[in-house]
């Protein structure tokens, strides 16, 4: 009896972790997700893109996803599982899958891999990411306009370049509206812990911030801001449900165009290893509707969005002044070079805080 129970339990576990449709001769495309597909944030947006992909090319492909796959060496097994199941193109959708993906890629040269937000590539491994700092710049403009106290609250996940460049872009934009704008930064040291994110939002509001920005994944901060009658920006996905009178806008991850393009390339044999780092112009992300703000603020945001999309406005236009008052070396001509943004590990002038580890 006990053996039967164990076998049954093991069977259920396996059945629960893989969901796939079966068909022969179709291109098999696999996805590795960090969180549950219902996280309403990062993983959810990848899942929406997968669904769009199926809608577009469903007659030619077959997709599989594994959710809740922890980052780190353990991910290797999950990626390999997808390879053995016959997937020829595999998207690994979080930074922490970088080394595991590379390892599996070296082992299976005939399978193509797409790794999100990383920097290591190989003949059969591409990387893709989005220039979210462009969206953060627009948010900075809105925040400075909407803040009465002149204090913005920023919840960070981990002090990695992607988050740091977001903070810098925000404050550089805000300074163009209000040169004395202040930002309080709290690191949650997690991507996802609704309780802690809510506590961080409460702490920021209690300390005088009246516009909350987040680089963590749950809608908790939005919900607290809504409870306290402040403003906030969503993250990754549309969060207006959690703050109908609170959300100013949100940076929406829109991976669908990229996924469709890459799968099409795989289908016609033109796939090759690339590094795609797209912005508003290539629709790697989008801005949610500008809500809960007066028309003049909305106009500023829309104008900035148009200018960034057209390439006329760059958030890191030189000169960029560092916290120590010295100008940052300008390696990209008129703007900071992409590499400087991708590896950003300094705060700009106007942030009275110390970057952890500096």
């Amino acid at each position, binding site marked *: 009896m*006990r053996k039967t129970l164990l076998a049954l339990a093991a069977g259920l*576990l396996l059945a*629960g972790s893989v969901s796939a449709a079966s068909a022969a001769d179709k291109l098999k495309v696999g996805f590795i997700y960090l*969180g*549950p597909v*219902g*996280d*309403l944030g990062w993983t959810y947006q990848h899942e929406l893109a997968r669904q769009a992909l199926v809608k577009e090319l469903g007659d030619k492909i077959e997709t599989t996803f594994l959710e809740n796959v922890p980052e780190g060496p353990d991910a290797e097994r999950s990626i390999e599982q997808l390879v053995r199941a016959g997937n020829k193109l595999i998207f690994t959708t979080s930074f922490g899958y970088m080394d595991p993906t590379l390892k599996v890629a070296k082992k299976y040269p005939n399978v193509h891999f797409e790794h999100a937000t990383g920097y290591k590539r190989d003949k059969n491994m591409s990387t893709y990411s989005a220039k979210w700092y462009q969206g953060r710049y627009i948010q900075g403009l809105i925040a400075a306009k909407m803040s009465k106290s002149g204090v913005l*609250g920023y919840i960070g996940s981990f002090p990695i370049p992607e988050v740091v460049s977001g903070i810098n872009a925000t404050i550089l934009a805000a300074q163009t509206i209000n040169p004395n704008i202040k930002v*309080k*930064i*709290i*690191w949650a*040291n*997690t991507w*996802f*812990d*609704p*309780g*802690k994110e*809510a*506590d*961080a939002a*409460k*702490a*920021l509001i*209690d*300390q005088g911030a009246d516009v909350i920005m987040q680089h963590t994944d*749950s*809608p*908790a901060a939005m*919900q*607290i801001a809504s409870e306290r009658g402040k403003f906030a920006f969503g993250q990754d996905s549309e969060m207006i*449900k*959690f703050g109908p009178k609170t959300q100013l806008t949100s940076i929406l991850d829109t991976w669908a165009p990229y996924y469709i393009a890459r799968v099409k390339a795989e289908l016609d044999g033109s796939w090759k290893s690339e590094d795609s780092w797209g912005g508003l112009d290539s629709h790697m992300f989008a801005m949610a509707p500008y809500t809960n703000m007066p028309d003049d603020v909305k106009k500023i945001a829309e104008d900035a969005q148009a200018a960034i999309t057209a390439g006329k406005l760059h958030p890191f236009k030189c000169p960029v002044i560092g916290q120590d008052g010295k100008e940052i070396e300008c390696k990209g001509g008129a703007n900071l070079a992409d590499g400087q943004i991708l590896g950003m590990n300094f705060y700009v002038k106007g942030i*009275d*805080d*110390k970057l*952890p*580890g500096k």
Partner: protein
Amino acid sequence: MELVEAIILSVLAASTPLLIAATGELVTERSGVLNLGVEGMMIVGAACGFGGAWLTGSIFIGALFGIVAGTLMSLVFALMALGLAVNQVATGLALTILGVGLSGLIGARFVGERITPAAHLHIPGLTDIPLIGRILFGEDAFVYFSLALIIGVWWFLYRTRAGLILRACGDNHVSAHALGYPVLKIRMLAVMFGGACAGLAGAYLPLAYTPFFIPGMTAGRGWIALALVVFASWRPGRLVIGAYLFGAVTILQLHAQGWGVGIPSQFMSALPYLATVIVLVLLSRARTGGSTAPAALGTVFVPDR
């Protein structure tokens, strides 16, 4: 001064789920059973609690759903660890993994829904007293209940005969059995109490803390509750101190960052756990006083019939 009040309010809210879950686990462990499945029972409690409140519109019914769900989860554990005498550590870990998966399944249709969070007490006059009014008379029902619960548990363990028997089972199940006490039955009730508390603690999160359900929203609080029981050296009084200390450190480190205090946030996040390790060392070095673990904790008991 308003900031102090705001901080204390946040600390109380952050500590309450830890206190409730740890209270249940304390009783379970005092009976000699180590249930490592607190996190799993909590997250199922969160999913069911939110579901109950969302379907009926009542926070109270939501809390009941959470309690029932946690109890049912603990019965799975009791069946395996007590009924079939399976290794408790392995069963507890399995219960957590089961709970995380099950909660996602139960909660899938509630993701993205919102409810009105639990109401806060408001007594005209008293609640409006500056500084202490909202802290003493303006909490939600869970906060008051958690304190009543731990006082009740203290009274039960140290002032009643039933509590003495429960502790006897935890310290020496062979003797308790020889004296004619139904060790397994007592342990099952203790495990169920632990499950009910964990379920309620989990339900607190979507019902009062952040009024929505998202898979994985307990984010390790069940493990903190387990650490708290050790931190408290299995004593209710120390458990209260420990729970509020953990809550206070969590909230204060966030405020310290906002003020720009130069202590690394990672270090401050690690402080409560460091404190647990230090307490464990101190406990093992203290020759007298300071009760240590129940002697039969985690050992399987199979009565010879």
